[in-house]
């Protein structure tokens, strides 16, 4: 038995704080890649647009940005609920709904990306 009890999970807050910043940088870089590619297209038609996402590395890059987005949104939305929603039951409900929605969006995005 140790006399020092772990009251809070050490570094949990730091991990989320850091994750939010790293995922933000990933999304910012993806925005630049997407904009650069869009401006490089001769014209925007279904062919050029779908062709852009047909390449495997664009799929992987988009998926990476999407995972970053979901993670980033989770930390942000959780922070909002922790600040404004005080009743524990309601907060739990909203946090659960957020996880379900975000995982659903991620799966939806995978099916979209791999449809071309």
């Amino acid at each position, binding site marked *: 038995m140790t006399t020092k009890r772990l009251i809070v999970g050490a570094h949990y807050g730091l991990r989320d704080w850091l994750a939010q*910043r790293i995922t*933000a*940088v990933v999304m*910012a870089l993806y*925005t630049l890649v997407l904009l650069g590619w869009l401006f490089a297209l001769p014209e925007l038609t*279904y062919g050029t*647009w*779908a062709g852009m*996402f047909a390449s495997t590395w664009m799929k992987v890059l988009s998926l990476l940005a999407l995972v970053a*987005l979901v993670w980033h*949104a989770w930390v*942000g*939305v959780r922070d*909002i609920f922790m*600040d*404004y929603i005080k009743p524990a039951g309601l907060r739990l409900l909203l946090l659960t709904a957020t996880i379900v929605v975000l995982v659903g*969006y991620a799966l*939806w*995005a995978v099916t*979209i*990306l791999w*449809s*071309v």
Partner: protein
Amino acid sequence: MTDAVDKATGRARPEFRNIHVTQIAGYRLPLAGIVSILHRISGALLFLVGLPFALYLFQQSLLSEISFDNYRAIVSHWFAKLVLLGLAWAYLHHLCAGIRYLFLDLDIGVDKAASRSSAAVVMAISLTLTFLVALKIFGVF
């Protein structure tokens, strides 16, 4: 803010607590505070409206030639254009304010004058870019 009674004078004195979301409109925030609360509001907007709408449009644009035409029809409706403009502002503000926070995290520009001017820069850049997006969406160029 709630009022507590001062024992000596018997008058109500202000007591400052965390600002709740319902009290935001009653506060006169400094510019950095406005950028901060807009960062939160734009983030919430992107999660609630931006993410599902963008995924839906993304799906329509990629699925087939026919759905691509459907995507074109949706984004040429005036109401969809307004929603997209709102989301474009939310994205641009969230991005610009987010970059400012990354610098603050690195201890760059933390003093009062620098943080005020960087907040002004965030507002200026995000609103200018939003204006350019508006011109593009409504077909000026």
